[in-house]
Structures are given as structure tokens and as C-alpha cells.
């Protein structure tokens, strides 16, 4: 049976492949990207909080209008319909009251309905951003869970190789030193990424600097993994093994999923941000305190990105 990530970390710590500190960092990154209970629902719940007072206000206005309309037309006595018959060219009392109330209602309700529609449209776009981010996060987690397996597989093989085949002590030491450096870089990047992802979704994706920091941390993880794969390239037997092929396929597949999720997240952010800047959504966004979302991209991508976001 395949060892779990936790078992691999314990084994690597026992074998001296990683230090206790590194083991703690790896453990902390397993299954840790979800925010603590309650925080996770923050951004999604916030949209409803905006929606609630305005819904109540709309309801109150409608109730008042209906109440006024019934007051204006209601009476306890049996209505004498002959008095309500309009003379040619004249207007009945009830008709005038109703018309005025309806006009008021229209003036109040139509803009409100329009506002609600615009608000809901923006909420839906914001939801798509959060959904896309959740997908990105789950792929980060998937990768985090694979990292112990990669470090463990490569280090065990290299240790075995260096003990049995490498005659020169310096060469053996150099290989193991390189491996330790790559593992350190990988684990450090993973630790930083996990710390950032532990913050609430909104804190991460509404802050350009945090997202840029996360990008750098993930890039460091990527570099560490590529380094380990490059080391494996020098060992055809390791590279050709089915176990390594499987691990490599899982990791490369996860990397691709991250790229796809990132692409879709940036598409959703672009759509949301562009809408927020257009009239009349910008008024709704300002009143509803909608926040602009940051793109998840490298500094180079950010430099080359077009300034305008209008579709």
C-alpha cells in the first residue's frame, strides 16, 4: 500500500532527509489551505449582507405603497358607484389617488428593481471570481499533498544510488547537498504559500501585494520541483520506473490544473473588474462596497498587461 504524505514526512525526518523544522513546515502545508471554520464563508456571505438591507427597504416601500393605495380607495360604507362615475372630461377622486400613488410607486420601485438587478449581476460575477479562486486553491492543496512523495521518492533513490554506486565521496556529498538545497527551497516556498492561503479568500484576492507574494512562493515551489525532476533526468533507471512516471504525471497534471484554474480565475477577475468600472455598475459597486480583485500573475505578466480592462 502506498505511504500517506504524513508517513512519508515521518520517514524522511527519521532518515535525516529533512530536518525537524522542514518536517513541521511540510506537515503544516498538508490540508491547510482552507481558512478556519467560519472565515471561509466570509466573502460569499458578504454579498448577501449587502443585499439584505436593500431588499428590506424595497419590501418596506412596496408595503407602504400598497397600504396607501388601500387607504385611498378603502371605505367602510357601501360604495355609491353613481358618485364615482366620471363626468365627460373629468377624473374620479379614486382614480386620481391611485394614479398618483402608482406614479410614486413606479418612481421608487423601478429604480430599486434596476438597482437590485445590477447589484445581483455584480454579486454573480464576484461569486465566479471566488469559485475560480476556490478551484485554484484546491489545486494548490493537491500539489502540496504530492510534494512529500516527490521529495521522498527522489531522495531515497539518490541515497541508495550514492551509497551503492558512487565511489567518490565528494561526488556523493555533492549530489546529496544539491538534493538538500532543492528540498529546502521547495519546503520554504510551500510553507510561505500555505501561510498566505490560510488567510481568508478576500484578504488574498483583493490585495495585489499578497497575491504577488503568493505567486512568488508558488514559483519557488515550482522551481524546487523542476530541480528535483532535473536531478532525476540524470538517473535513467529512476526516470524510467513506473512509480516515478506515475508521480511525475500526477505532479505535471496538477501543475496544468493550476495553470488552467489561474487562467480562469484571471478571466473571471477581468470580467468582474471591467464590469465594476462601467456605468452604472460603478455606482452600485461603490454603494455596495464591492472591492476590485487582484490578478494572479507574475510581475512580468503584470508589466505587459494592458492598462484598460473594458471588454
Amino acid at each position, binding site marked *: 500500500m502506498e505511504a500517506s504524505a504524513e508517513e512519508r514526512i515521518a520517514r524522511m525526518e527519521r532518515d535525516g532527509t529533512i530536518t525537524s523544522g522542514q518536517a513541521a513546515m511540510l506537515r503544516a502545508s498538508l490540508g491547510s489551505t482552507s481558512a478556519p471554520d467560519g472565515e471561509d464563508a466570509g466573502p460569499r456571505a458578504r454579498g448577501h449582507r449587502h443585499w439584505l438591507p436593500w431588499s428590506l427597504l424595497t419590501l418596506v416601500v412596496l408595503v407602504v405603497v400598497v397600504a396607501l393605495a388601500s387607504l385611498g380607495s378603502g371605505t367602510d360604507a357601501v360604495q355609491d358607484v353613481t358618485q364615482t362615475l366620471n363626468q365627460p372630461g373629468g377624473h374620479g377622486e379614486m382614480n386620481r389617488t391611485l394614479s398618483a400613488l402608482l406614479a410614486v410607486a413606479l418612481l421608487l420601485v423601478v429604480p430599486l428593481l434596476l438597482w437590485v438587478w445590477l447589484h445581483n449581476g455584480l454579486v454573480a460575477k464576484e461569486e465566479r471570481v471566488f469559485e475560480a479562486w476556490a*478551484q485554484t486553491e484546491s489545486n494548490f492543496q493537491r500539489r502540496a499533498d504530492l510534494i512529500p512523495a516527490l521529495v521522498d521518492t527522489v531522495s531515497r533513490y539518490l541515497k541508495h544510488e550514492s551509497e551503492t554506486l558512487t565511489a567518490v565521496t565528494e561526488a556523493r556529498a555533492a549530489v546529496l547537498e544539491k538534493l538538500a538545497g532543492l528540498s529546502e527551497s521547495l519546503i520554504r516556498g510551500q510553507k510561505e504559500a500555505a501561510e498566505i492561503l490560510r488567510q481568508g479568500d478576500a484578504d488574498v484576492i483583493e490585495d495585489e501585494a499578497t497575491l504577488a507574494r503568493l505567486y512568488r512562493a508558488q514559483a519557488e515551489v515550482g522551481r524546487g520541483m523542476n530541480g528535483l525532476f532535473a536531478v532525476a533526468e540524470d538517473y535513467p533507471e529512476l526516470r*524510467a520506473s*513506473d512509480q516515478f*512516471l*506515475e508521480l*511525475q*504525471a*500526477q505532479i*505535471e*497534471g*496538477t501543475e*496544468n*490544473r*493550476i*495553470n*488552467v*484554474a489561474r*487562467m480562469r480565475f484571471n478571466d473571471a477577475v477581468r470580467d468582474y473588474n471591467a464590469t465594476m468600472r462601467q456605468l452604472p455598475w460603478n455606482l452600485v459597486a461603490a454603494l455596495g462596497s464591492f472591492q476590485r480583485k487582484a490578478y494572479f500573475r507574475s510581475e512580468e505578466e503584470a508589466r505587459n498587461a494592458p492598462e484598460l480592462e473594458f471588454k
Partner: protein
Amino acid sequence: MRRSSSSNRLTLWLAAALLAGLAIGFAVHAAGRADLVVDDAGLMSPVERDRLAEYHDYLLKDHDIDYRVETGRDLGDINTFAVRRFEDFAETGRSERGRGLLLVVDAKQNLVRLEVSYALEGVFPDAFVAYIEQRQMTYFFGRDRVADGILAATELIITRAQRAAEATGFEGEVWTFGSGGAGATTSARLGTGAEPVEPRNDGGNHAAASPTPQETLAAYFAAMGARDGDPDLALYTPATREMLRDWVMTPAQMDNVVRSYGACHAEAPRLGPQGRHAVIRYPIAERACAPWFFEKIDGAWHLDLTMMQKAIRFGRSNAWRLDSAARHPYAFAFDDWSFDAHGFPQRRRP
């Protein structure tokens, strides 16, 4: 007289309408199939493209998997190309349950990617996709047999889909047609030539022909388990050795032999009248377990893959059948069975 003439005219009109309907139906069907294989890089002949399209059309009918193939030159980032292509297919996906596969071959970058839809991620994980690409498909690509490589991989896809359908509730799941980047990309190794398979351990060096057909078959399975694709194994007949020299023997094929027959229950060998030929067959119900033919040479039983190649065919669901037109000395082993019009075995009614 007039009545008869108008009746004839009506019949003619009806016949013309029927023909037109048939022609339109055929054209629509052919156009639908044409979308399944788009070979802009020109890696396949028209006959091969049609064969692939036909096979993939069956895959859609039998397993509701919409499997498409696209080749091109310099498609940019192949991973992004594949996922974007999938987005294009969202409207036109033909699978009712969102099951889609897209194989992209970039001839210039020498890369191949099999993109897997959300619905199939659980059945075809990335590791399996990488396996069929690296251990099956690209061995054929190396010899410029692109269509054969794709078909060989499709066989493994079908086998896995069948097992998933039997083992899980996979059949009932309905997904939207789309992909989140699942699948695998690998070097296509186009035109790199035949690549020898490195056997595990010492391979099948000791796989000699044995005094009983069962022992020879066990030695063959051991060689396949060790991924020894050496055409000169001592347990083959001379004709088999000759034939295997031109064959593409992939690691996945060898693994598949061991995996497939692991669940089969062999009957006692059936010997021919002169004692020179033998057959090991399996119960009819085990449809994927094809029989093995043996020839006795110098007192030892040798595996006769040449005759098996002539006589045994496999249907769409990997069920074996006998080619009634093939001439071979092993017919004695099936005297107690009858075969349907397609050659599928049936128990003879008393």
C-alpha cells in the same frame, strides 16, 4: 390509365424523397464523423482517418465517450490549446454525460497531449493517461504509425472504461462537458524509429519451450510480466519469431496480457489428433480471454502466435471471435462449440 400514371408518379416522388432523405442522413452522419479526426498536420492517410473516426464513433455509441483527435503544427502551448479546444466543444459535445477525450498531436513541437473531461477524470487519472501515451502510443509514433498508435491506446481506454463501468457507478454520472486541465502531455517521439523496451530484471531469458502447454504459457506470462519483448524467446515457434521481428511490442501491451489473463480460468489443454498441436482455451463466458495455440517442436510446446494472429479477431468490446475464413490446424479444439455469423463462440445446443 390516367389513374395508374398518377400513381406511378407518386411512387416515383416517394422513392426520390426516400433517397434524398437517406443521402442527407448519410451526409450528416459522415460530417459528424469527420469532426472526430482533424488531421491538419497530415500524419494519417485518408483511410486511416476514416478507420479512426469509425472506431471513435463506436466509442461514442458503446460508452458515450466523445473522443476527438486533432493534429497540427506549432499549436502554441499544447496544454492551453487543448483546454481552449475543449471550451469550443462545450456547445457541440456529443456525450450525454459530458464524457470527452481530446488527443492533440503537435508535429512541429513533437508533443502529444490527451485532455480528459471532468466526467472521466476519475476513470482516466493523469498517471493512466501518461502511461498509455508513454508505454503504448508513442512506440507506434516512433515508427510513423500515428493512427495505429492512437488505436492501440484506444483499446486500453476501452478496457479501462469497461472495468470502471463494472466496478463503480460510473454509468449514472452526468457532468457538464468541459475540462479543468486533466490529462498528460508527453514527447510524441514522431519518426524516432523503433525503441527497444528495457526488460525488468533479467526479462524472459529463461522463457524456454516446455514439456507441457501450461508450462510454456506460464513462461510466456512471466516474460510478459518482465516486459521482455524479445522476438527471439525460445518459447516461440520459428514463424512466430519471424513475425514478431516487425511487430511493435509495447510495455503496455505486455502489461495488458498479464493483467487481462490474470482473471481468466484456463481449461485443460486440448490436443490435436496427431499430438502436434494443442490449444488452451477459457470458458465461453470469459469473452476477453482468447485461446492460445501451441505447436510441438522437438518434444517441447512452442507458442504459435502466427496462427493466433490469423484466426483470432477482437470485437469492439475486446471480446474475441474466430475468423471463419482463416485456415489453421487448431479447429479441432472448438468442435464442441458453435460460432455465430460474426465468429463469436457459443455453446452448442444438444
